[in-house]
């Protein structure tokens, strides 16, 4: 059986706890199989909102996987991947999806970090210790372009805690360490891959977003990002570049 389908089902089923109220039945039902009963418009709305992935929604997959690989290269030499049943099937699953262009539903939600709850919560309880503390520091800092030649606080691949330093842990890797050479910051590799993985038309927009501010600064300007990234990846991850970099030539340019 298709593993991806299973995973989808699992995630959906997990959503359904024993209905505590009409609200819960509605909310949980959004991800459940459609009931044969007369359609309730509200239930239909929630179901539509929770519909399976639409084309475009998974566009960032390559970038996410690149980040995953990058993090592993920089971090612990993980144990051998367990194969298990977590394999194929995804294609079939994806093939069954509906085809609609997804122009992001643009709903700027300005009011969100409203006065009384502006600060991300300290997550009481047991669930997620890390994300609450760590996230603000790293990629977001539109830091100064100078003086950050080596590792900086904004280095996105340097784990904020818990992972051994990237230097001596992974003998198998081509030991990049371009940190101190030119202005190349190996920490930008993740962002570079994210950038280069984007369709050409999205790149410009991406560079305008604050998340890439560090990268633009490191490259010395938006127009240099492509070149910078290619140079950086040529050092740190030539394989990736070979696979993805080719497209770059045709799309960037003038």
């Amino acid at each position, binding site marked *: 059986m298709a593993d991806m389908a299973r*995973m989808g089902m699992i*995630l*959906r*089923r*997990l*959503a359904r706890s*024993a209905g505590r109220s009409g*609200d819960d039945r509605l*909310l*949980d039902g*959004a991800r459940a199989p459609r009931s044969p009963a007369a359609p309730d*418009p*509200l239930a239909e*709305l*929630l*179901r*539509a909102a*929770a519909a399976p*992935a639409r084309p475009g*929604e*998974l566009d960032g997959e390559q970038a*996410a*996987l690149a980040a*995953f690989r990058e993090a592993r290269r920089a971090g*612990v030499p*993980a144990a*051998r*991947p367990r194969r298990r049943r*977590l394999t194929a099937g*995804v294609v079939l699953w994806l093939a069954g999806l*509906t085809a*609609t262009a997804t*122009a*992001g*539903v*643009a*709903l*700027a*939600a*300005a009011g*969100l970090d409203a006065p009384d*709850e*502006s*600060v*991300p919560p*300290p*997550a*009481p309880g047991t669930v*997620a*210790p*890390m*994300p*609450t503390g760590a*996230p603000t520091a790293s990629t977001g800092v539109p830091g100064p372009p100078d003086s950050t030649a080596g590792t900086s606080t904004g280095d996105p691949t340097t784990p904020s805690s*818990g992972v051994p330093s990237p230097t001596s842990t992974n003998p198998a890797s081509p030991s990049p360490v371009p940190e101190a050479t030119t202005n190349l910051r190996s920490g930008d590799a*993740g962002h570079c891959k*994210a950038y280069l993985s984007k369709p050409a038309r999205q790149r410009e*927009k991406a560079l305008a*977003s604050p*998340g890439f501010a560090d990268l633009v600064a490191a490259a010395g300007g938006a127009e240099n990002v492509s070149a910078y990234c290619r140079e950086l990846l040529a050092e740190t991850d030539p394989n990736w570049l070979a696979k993805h970099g080719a497209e770059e030539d045709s799309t960037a340019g003038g």
Partner: protein
Amino acid sequence: MERERQGHDRDELSQAVQAAQAGDEQAFRLLYRGLQPGLLRYLTALVGADAEDVASETWLQVARDLPNFTGGEFRAWVVTIGRNRAMDHLRRQRRRPTLSVPVEELTEVPGAADTAEHAGESLGTEAALAMIASLPPREAEAVLLRAVIGLDAESAGRVLGRRAGAVRTAAHRGLRRLALLLEQRAGHVESPDGVVPRPRTGRSSQASRTEPVDG
């Protein structure tokens, strides 16, 4: 038995998480595919057209911090990262207003194509999300976390830093408001070609988002 099956599902999910932690790229891919659509929709309600960028940042961090994930509700963990990213994003945007999203992008509101997405369905995904996002922020978040991400009220509460009861209340109000919107929509739209009356999205401002729906 429902409970048992849930336990089983949780096991499978946590196995996938563990496999990813052990370096299994395929497992990470599955997690991405399972979570990204809901995450993106949630983030869209928070930051509009920048949601894709915020989602990329989120996955960068998820990939990086995965070794640190110690258990618990993985989806809540990912969504918490995403939400923090979104808040950072909004703060930065306020500091640098020049980088705001072009108006054209904000007005890419669901149209006929989306509405007709599923033949049998009254409402397309995009339009449904637009309606939810037109709710007051807290209600929108509660509904999205519960229905679209699939968190229970407790986990959603942890993501939001609020009590489960508060999440339930917000979700309840949101649902009532949505029901009202649907009624209005049903009342106003008679012709089949008259798409959904544009929900108050996109250009709606802070002010209009926080006021209750009139009527």
